[in-house]
């Protein structure tokens, strides 16, 4: 069986965690929630650092079953803690080698130089951890975890202890992990922006209970889960199709169709995520040829939810694909009445602005 089957009941002090879900065997699963929601506890249960009752099966391999639990050091996992936690008595190179040396040569699937290059830590190898910046330390910690050739990489808010500059420095490396390695990642975060940028699957925790889980692009646009109606947005994944150099525009191919945005640096073929804020999506009954708006797609209204006085959030699906990734439009109740909008109605979604996710 593929997938990561997680089911735990844990009691830590006065806090109780009860959760069960199956995460995909590839890509980034974000464990998302506010502080105190139990996401770090859940990650520690998966690692075996926290005693819990339950069941854990990682791509067919049983790590825990009832009261039996595989010891932490036998689990083929990598763990990146919130603070880099490098060993202060070892050089960067010896830190990186710590887990790598303990792996039988036949089980090493990540080459030393490969991990070092992937995280860009070549020039730090002979340094002592105390001389590194926060961002550098965290990159070494990630490389160190990768060098144990994990079959599941666990990351506990790896960016939260860093300042904005170091965050911006590490995010591209995390995206590379996601794109270049086939290792599933559990990524704990309380930042919706990070989750929207990195996650393929979301497990949403609240007060130790599972609130929702599902594919990221779907869950991010679920109106009932929107944290703040004014900031609701949809996230689409696409591939850079071409650049229209004369107009300084880039065309990205998405599930909804072509989308035009300000010229971006990525080369054609590059996978990108774009955000479509609900307040910048409006609805029309007809495709207007004469308009300054570049992006307009046929859609079907799925639901209309009143969220604040006089305003509603309208969830839309592509007209061509009722199961497609949804969009959200934030419009006035007056427009709903005047246009006679209701679920099932065919409309055109007109997108005023599109932003690249980063």
């Amino acid at each position: 069986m593929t997938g990561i089957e997680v089911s735990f009941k844990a009691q830590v002090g006065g806090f109780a965690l009860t959760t069960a879900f199956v995460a995909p065997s590839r890509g980034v699963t974000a464990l998302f929630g506010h502080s105190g929601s139990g996401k770090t506890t859940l990650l520690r249960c998966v690692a075996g650092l926290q005693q819990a009752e339950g069941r854990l099966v990682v791509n067919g391999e049983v790590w825990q079953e009832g009261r039996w639990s595989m010891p932490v050091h036998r689990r083929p996992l990598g763990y990146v803690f919130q603070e880099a936690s490098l060993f202060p008595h070892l050089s960067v190179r010896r830190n990186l080698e710590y887990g790598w040396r303990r792996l039988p040569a036949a089980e090493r699937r990540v080459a030393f130089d490969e991990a070092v290059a992937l995280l860009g830590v070549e020039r730090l190898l002979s340094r002592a951890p105390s001389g590194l910046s926060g961002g550098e330390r965290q990159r070494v910690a990630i490389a160190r975890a990768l060098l144990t050739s994990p079959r599941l990489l666990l990351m506990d808010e790896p960016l939260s202890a860093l300042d904005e500059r170091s965050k911006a420095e590490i995010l591209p490396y995390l995206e590379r992990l996601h794109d270049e390695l086939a290792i599933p990642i559990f990524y704990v975060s309380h930042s919706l922006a990070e989750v929207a940028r990195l996650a393929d699957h979301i497990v949403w925790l609240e007060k130790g209970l599972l609130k929702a889980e599902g594919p990221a692009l779907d869950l991010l646009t679920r109106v009932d889960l929107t944290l703040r109606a004014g900031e609701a947005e949809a996230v689409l994944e696409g591939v850079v199709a071409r650049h229209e150099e004369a107009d300084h525009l880039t065309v990205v191919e998405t599930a909804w169709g072509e989308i035009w945005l300000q010229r971006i640096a990525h080369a054609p073929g590059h996978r990108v995520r774009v955000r479509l804020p609900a307040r910048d999506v409006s609805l029309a009954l007809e495709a207007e040829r004469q308009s300054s708006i570049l992006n307009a797609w046929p859609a079907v209204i799925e639901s209309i939810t009143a969220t604040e006085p006089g305003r509603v959030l309208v969830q839309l699906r592509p007209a061509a694909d009722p199961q497609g990734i949804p969009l959200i439009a934030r419009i006035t109740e007056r427009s709903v009445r005047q246009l006679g909008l209701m679920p099932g109605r065919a409309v055109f979604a007109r997108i005023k602005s599109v932003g690249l996710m980063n």
Partner: protein
Amino acid sequence: MAQFDWQPVWLTLQLAGTTTLLLLLVGTPFAWWLARTRSFWKQPVGAVVALPLVLPPTVLGFYLLLLLGPKGVVGEMTQALGLGLLPFTFWGLVVASVLYSMPFVVQPLQNAFEALGDRPIEVAATLRASPLDRFFTVAVPLARPGFLTATVLGFAHTVGEFGVVLMIGGNIPGETKVLSVAIYDYVESLEYDQAHILAAGMVGFSFLVLLTLHFTNRRLEVRQ
């Protein structure tokens, strides 16, 4: 001045060396357990280890004498094993010194292990290190200042003991007549010159020990 008798000095160094070595071997796992356990027994056991800090040495020596003597539980055992009796022998002194100096080795180690916290050990576990492996490759190197303090204090304290030695060792030249007893002897027989050599030597030794400890610990802290 007669030929100076160095034998008590060598005997003392031998006793302190043996005791410190044994204490590091026994005390390290013990301190590790005390630092990591959440067991109910942590406090009672910790208190027993610390007893020599507050007990008069003669009290400890008295009970050891009874325990190791011909009618004591341990004494009967050592006789049955063909080891003879321990009181008034070098090894009897070693046993007494190990118990007497125990807190001076166990407590610095326990403090050092507690200061590590769980994190480095957890990190090592996620990097495939078995419990013994993480102890030797992470806990021990990170607790190095604690080991240094424990070694120096254990050694120096054994060198300076008097009450326990007198109770369980007596005053047999070459076997149990250690430095502190020798000083006492010289003073008793009014040989102040001889007493001075040993006593002043002890003052110098103790001062050097503390100075070395201070500087080495500072250097270790700077490095980490």
